[in-house]
């Protein structure tokens, strides 16, 4: 018996309203693990380059990992995988909360959705019983309302993943929200638009079938020491959330400011920090399932123009995207902006990036106040930030353009606008600056979903040797304290990406590293839970396999070195002041080192022997002709 997995995948064709269960192929599961890895294989096999992301032929895949729904620390997560309407390539997005756990306990490792419902629909999945229900009354409702209405119908124990109005309107910044007012999100790459294109408003799940844990005693014995250790190392995160380090982020030059063109925001950082939030607005912490850390914030602004409901507060990415990036130092505006993004179902990183882009276009005379529906888009103007979120969420006015993402918006505006559209492959860059941590240059440039910090998260390693050693003890070089140096940065990105692929597949939260745990612990937990003997080396090889699989998906869509680049602002404009004032990443050399370490050609294509070594022989036929010679 293999533990951890539910052993079944639910497939639903919304066009024909048919459903069936597929038994999990355990050989595939060992190779691709679960979560975004296993889902990537499904996407690779079934959604080719000819499929339009918003067509019924695209798949929307929700997938838990083998650790989801078990006591493994921070494992209460699930992945959503699809072809992205924002980038046109591979998309994965990850969320915490309790939805993934509920899915597993309902008896499924994943749900694969194809087709398009003839009218608004939602799914109700309870302990193996699946219903396709009418959602006409939910269409147009925000994500918090949708959660309330569905629960009033199916019961409070259900956990709901849903889109808001942005997803219904196929906005390319649309997210899929889960866990209602707790505001957990699969936010990136427009996954909410794919759900909207299928006329699927929500999936409610509930279950009582916990997965078996084969070596339960051994696991619990291990967790007895590991959980207190994680808690001890992560006091700051528990107390102040992921925004605890905002002041230091600003000081080190890692925080993008004023659409990535300013070096310092000292005072603004202080009053938008996790500490400031804890002191003035924090109601309580929020813990995703099986998480001993609880970095989530539940906040409330009681009065004033930026009053909020009691619900999810912003984390670091949102604090910066709606704060420093737009030169906004008003935390209440950020918190209301966060709530509105959650309600509309909009990714806060991309929303902040789109607003900052619009503010720069306004400053440079390419967008007028009239274009913005009367909003004065001067930097930091609270009314502009809130107003533009409404426009994006409702698909009105300038929001229609910004809702396409900054790449398309800049192309439509024309002129020099692409110069200040900060994205990679169509995905707006996250809130960590490669000019501060140079490995993030290849991290963003080669991220399989575009400008994402979590595909490598290598900035975490550039910060300190201890986390580095614990996370991957076999890292093939020593840590050195030069975040602005070039040496080994390409290799660092490769190793970190492989590790992140493992975590995205087992379904673990990236923050758990700060508790001084790493690949050895993950192998131990996975072995205890599944009963299979899985070593750290086997997991790292699986991570490498998965990264190559996703890359090959993108290669089939025409991606190569020409696309693996950064916005010119990051490559060639210095921050000017602050902790990374004078530094630019030496990108070309780093990228070549990266390809070399990956076993890819100089054009960024996996070599045939690399694919064969990783057991990806089926992908060889998809190599471009030139790469096979």
């Amino acid at each position, binding site marked *: 018996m293999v533990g951890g997995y539910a052993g079944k995948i639910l497939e639903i064709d919304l066009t024909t309203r048919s459903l069936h269960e597929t038994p999990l192929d355990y050989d595939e599961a060992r190779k691709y693990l679960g979560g975004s890895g296993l889902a990537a294989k499904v996407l690779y096999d079934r959604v080719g380059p000819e499929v339009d992301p918003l067509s019924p032929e695209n798949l929307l895949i929700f997938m838990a990992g083998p650790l989801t729904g078990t006591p493994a620390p921070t494992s209460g997560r699930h992945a959503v995988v699809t072809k992205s309407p924002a980038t046109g390539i591979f998309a994965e997005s990850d969320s915490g909360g309790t939805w993934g756990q509920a899915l597993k306990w309902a008896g499924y490792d994943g749900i694969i959705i194809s087709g398009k419902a003839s009218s608004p629909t939602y799914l109700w999945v309870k302990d193996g019983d699946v219903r396709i229900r009418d959602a006409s009354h939910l269409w147009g409702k925000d994500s918090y309302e949708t959660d309330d209405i569905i629960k009033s119908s199916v019961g409070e124990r259900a956990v709901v993943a849903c889109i808001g109005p942005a997803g219904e309107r196929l906005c390319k910044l649309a997210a899929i929200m889960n866990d209602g007012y707790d505001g957990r999100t699969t936010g990136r790459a427009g996954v909410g638009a794919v759900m909207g294109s299928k006329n699927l408003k929500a999936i409610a799940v509930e279950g009582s079938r916990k997965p078996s844990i084969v070596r339960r005693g051994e696991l619990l014995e291990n967790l007895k020491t590991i959980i207190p250790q994680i808690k*001890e*190392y*992560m*006091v*700051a*995160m528990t*107390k*102040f959330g*992921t*925004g*605890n*380090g*905002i*002041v*230091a*982020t600003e*000081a*080190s*030059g*890692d925080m993008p400011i004023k659409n990535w063109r300013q070096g310092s925001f000292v005072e603004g950082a*202080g009053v938008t920090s*996790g*500490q400031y939030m*804890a*002191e003035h607005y924090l109601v309580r912490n929020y813990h995703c399932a099986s998480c001993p850390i609880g*970095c989530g914030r539940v906040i409330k602004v009681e009065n004033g123009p930026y009053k909020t409901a009691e619900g999810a507060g912003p*984390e*670091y*990415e949102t604090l910066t995207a709606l704060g420093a990036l737009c030169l906004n130092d008003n935390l209440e505006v950020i918190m209301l902006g966060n709530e509105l993004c959650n309600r509309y179902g909009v990714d806060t990183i991309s929303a902040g990036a789109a607003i900052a882009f619009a503010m720069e276009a306004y400053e440079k005379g390419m967008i007028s106040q009239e274009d913005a529906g009367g909003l004065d888009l001067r930097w930091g103007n609270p009314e502009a930030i809130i107003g533009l979120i409404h426009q994006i969420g409702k698909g009105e006015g300038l929001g229609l353009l910004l809702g396409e993402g900054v790449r398309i918006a800049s192309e439509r505006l024309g002129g020099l606008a692409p110069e200040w559209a900060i994205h990679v492959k169509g995905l707006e860059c996250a*809130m960590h600056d490669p000019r501060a941590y140079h490995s993030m240059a290849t991290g963003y440039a080669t991220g399989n979903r575009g400008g994402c910090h979590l595909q490598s998260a290598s900035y*975490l390693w550039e*910060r*300190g*040797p*201890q*986390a580095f050693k614990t996370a991957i003890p076999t890292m093939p070089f020593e840590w050195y*304290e*030069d*975040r*602005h140096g070039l040496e080994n940065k390409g290799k660092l990105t490769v190793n970190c990406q492989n590790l992140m692929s493992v975590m995205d597949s087992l379904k673990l939260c990236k*923050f758990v590293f*700060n508790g*001084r745990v790493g690949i050895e612990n993950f192998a131990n937990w996975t072995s205890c839970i599944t009963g299979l003997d899985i070593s750290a080396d086997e997991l790292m090889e699986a991570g490498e396999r998965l990264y190559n699989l996703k890359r090959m998906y993108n290669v089939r869509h025409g991606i190569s070195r020409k696309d693996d680049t950064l916005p010119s602002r990051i490559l060639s404009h210095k921050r000017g002041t*602050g*902790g*990374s*004032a*004078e*530094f630019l990443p030496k990108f070309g050399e780093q990228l070549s080192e990266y390809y070399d370490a990956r076993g890819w050609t100089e054009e960024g294509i996996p070599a045939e022997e690399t694919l064969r070594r990783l057991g990806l022989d089926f992908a060889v036929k998809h190599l471009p002709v030139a790469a096979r010679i």
Partner: protein
Amino acid sequence: MQVLFAPPYNDAVGQRTVTVQLSEGAHVAGLLDLLVEMFPPLRQALTDALGRLLLGSEFFATVDDKVAKADQVLHEGSSVRLFPAIGGGARIESGRFTA
């Protein structure tokens, strides 16, 4: 007064808890100055290249479980805790900004 060191500062100090005597009216900055004198490895973790305390950026102090500023006055029986910034923001270990 008791000072509790969260990891990795406990490694620098060699213990989890330290009891110190401070004069009446002493404030948090004074306590921190005393601690870096007492435990030299802490200096690298808690100060920048110019010796300035990185309170509020690289690390935090709480007094009786509330975030404390440098000028907060301490009282007999106060419980002080030091821990590093982590995660989305700060550097997670000792060392100095290289800029």
